[in-house]
């Protein structure tokens, strides 16, 4: 295999690995731009992966599975909102609690329903999102450079992948071109300004969380019934946190979020590729280094080496009128 083939195969797997990050980071984009820290993304993703797998297993319908994943994710979002918006609880505590609930509940329910040590049953093929071969992929395969890229990177992904990339311009458009987006960004910067403009701060933030739940539902669904064919214990494996890191790395902006997710996905794919291989001169690089890179990069960014990340000003602070 020559270097180009290796590159194409890493790129293909980078795309696949970045999709759950992308959905989740876009979800976080909506909640955090509205001033709600969303550390519970991890839990939402896990819960929706489980729900999607269960529904798809029982119904044999992938779209119903997706609906289940989205539904649960929104329910989790609403719980987060109830704790941190309605009752003005600490957003980090509430988010971490949701992560625990998701981790525990998926195991307990999975064991009770399927008795496979936390796995759900194998989802039948029609209950999964399978790869779509784009027209002309086979014909193009022999065209140098473009051919393999088209056939292996652009084509051959499942529908959720295309939806993920479509969500990037849509998110941008919603945030910057609609009334909803203007109010959402305002409520994350200065909720007082939104309140005195006669808009309900709580309802705005709830709506942002619902959007976040919706997007995060896709991420979970992708994990269990697009990338694999069942739910496995702790399937999200920290991807929610990486997505959060990507969000910070992208300074809470939609297009950079996509680039950050692709970068982190690429690092992941590269780590997989490097497993057991050794680099010239350096020797074998522990795979953990690549896994830690997203976090390290984010820390470097936060330390101010790559410009400054200016988080939404009112982030993390419950809104009260009292002084």
């Amino acid at each position, binding site marked *: 295999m020559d270097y180009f083939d290796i590159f194409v195969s890493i790129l293909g797997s980078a795309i696949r690995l970045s999709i759950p990050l992308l959905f989740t980071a876009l979800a976080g984009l909506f909640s955090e731009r509205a001033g709600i820290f969303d550390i519970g993304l991890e839990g939402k993703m896990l819960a929706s992966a489980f729900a999607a797998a269960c529904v798809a297993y029982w119904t044999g319908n992938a779209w119903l599975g997706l609906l289940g994943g989205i539904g649960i994710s929104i329910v989790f979002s609403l719980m987060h909102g109830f704790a941190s918006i309605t009752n003005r609880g600490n957003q980090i505590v509430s988010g971490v609690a949701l992560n625990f609930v998701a981790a525990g509940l998926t195991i307990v329910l999975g064991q009770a329903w399927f008795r496979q040590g936390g796995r759900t049953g194998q989802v039948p093929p029609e209950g999964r999102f399978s790869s779509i071969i784009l027209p002309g992929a086979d014909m193009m395969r022999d065209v140098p450079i473009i051919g393999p890229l088209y056939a292996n990177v652009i084509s051959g992904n499942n529908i959720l992948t295309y939806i993920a990339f479509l969500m990037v311009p849509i998110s941008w458009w919603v945030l910057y*071109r609609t009334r909803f987006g203007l109010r959402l960004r305002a409520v994350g910067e*200065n909720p007082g*300004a939104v309140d005195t403009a*006669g808009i309900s701060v709580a309802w705005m933030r709830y709506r942002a969380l619902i959007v976040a739940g919706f997007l995060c539902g896709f991420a979970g669904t992708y994990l269990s019934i697009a990338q694999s064919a069942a739910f496995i214990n702790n399937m999200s494996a920290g991807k929610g946190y990486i997505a959060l890191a990507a969000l910070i790395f992208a300074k809470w902006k939609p297009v950079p979020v996509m680039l950050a997710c692709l970068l982190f996905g690429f690092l992941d794919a590269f780590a997989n590729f490097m497993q057991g291989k050794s680099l010239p001169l350096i020797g074998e690089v522990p795979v953990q280094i690549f896994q830690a890179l997203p976090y390290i990069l984010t820390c470097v960014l936060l330390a101010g080496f790559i410009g400054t990340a200016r988080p939404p*000003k009112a982030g993390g602070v419950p809104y009260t009128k009292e002084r």
Partner: protein
Amino acid sequence: MSLDSPKEPAIELVGIDKKFGTVHANKNINLTVAKGSIHGIIGENGAGKSTLMSILYGFYQADHGEIRISGKPVTIRDSQAAIAAGIGMVHQHFMLVENFTVLENVMLGAEGGQLLAKGVASARKELKRLEDDYGLEVDPDSVIEELPVGSQQRVEILKALYRGAEILILDEPTGVLTPPEADHLFKVLRVLRDQGKTIILITHKLREIMAITDTVSVMRRGEMVATRKTAETTVEELAELMVGRRVLLRVEKGAANPGAVLMSVRNLTVRDSRGVTMVDNVSFDVRAGEIVGIAGVAGNGQSELLEAIAGIRKPSAGEIFIDGKPVAGVDPAGLRELGLAHIPEDRHHMGLVLKFEEYENSILGYHRDAKYGRGPFLDLDAMRRDAEEKIGKYDIRPPNPRLRTANFSGGNQQKIVVAREIERDPKMLIIGQPTRGVDIGAIEFIHKRIIEMRDAGKAVLLVSVELDEIRSLSDRILVMFAGKIVGEKSSEAGEQTLGLMMAGIAA
């Protein structure tokens, strides 16, 4: 209609009552504001002015009482209802999204449809019209955080007018403005009134009340105690109504008796975080027993000068001596030990931890003192006793050392800081804006304390953007312009002369 017959009322408040826990902020308030007039509301700190206005704007709910707009009873459950009733408010602390443009801020909540594109064009047109009609000029595409405060305030007014406000409430609008900005604001307000808008203006500056209002109401301790036609009252009467006793509007002080130099600044240069030179090669001395005032329009380097002397900001060149000793690199705690006390300009940022209880703030910075603790432990009883003493002496209201500092009104927060620094009996005192947002009774008191400090042989350095304050307190006045000291005058110098120097025109 004859001049004396009251015009149709725009607002009637009947029996408004509001309690915050044990604090009775508004007691059975009745107020009538005539349409097309400018109505001033004055009152001591914590009298309940902001609370009353927040009720009118739907930010708080009254416990009892009725609001009538143009004769019709209305329920104002939230700001949306207030906006619908034609009320707009410019808050004491601006309600602007700082990283949004002017246009986005104005449109927020009145976007004119689901998509922004539609509203933007009409908003631009409307802003242009408001600018032409009322002289409210701001560039719709500039970002709020890059605008000076005066322009930010214009955006707040534009926001209200854009929503079709007929009634405009301004809560201490001039507290943060430079004199020319304030003049501009008053010009705008007069135009608005002449076009039939009704304006409620809260301020502590009686001069402004006399200059611009038609009617003025006085609040004291939650009650509405008097309403007067401005033309038929005097500053003295208003001051007395506010405080309940006669007030000295200008402090009396004897001649200064300057002694040894206690503080000297030599060739000091200070740059801000962006590297811009804010203080440019400044030298002066302050002697024991004198008050040196630094006059200047806000933003000409006074803040940076104070911060450098207080040890908060590192000078890039020059030296500061205290008692003859160079103090470069000494931190604020070390400076305190040398007898330097600092009343910072901005109480929220530097003077107080708003989440702390009053008694904690009242010793903040001096918490290592033996009298407040034993070893690593704080002696809470001693702290509270000490706080109660200061509360009594400075008439801080409500007199409760266990109250969260955020729940005190602005003026009372300022008194907490002043009490803390002055009661330490320091050798040198540096003060920034000692009476910003403070009522006249408290101003009189704080001014007296500053003069007492001087008479007791302390060196006092005073920075204030209030020229009156500088002139009535200082023994010598240094004028700062563009980071340089452009001249020194005695306290007899006229307002005109100083004003020109502050504008950098004459020395």
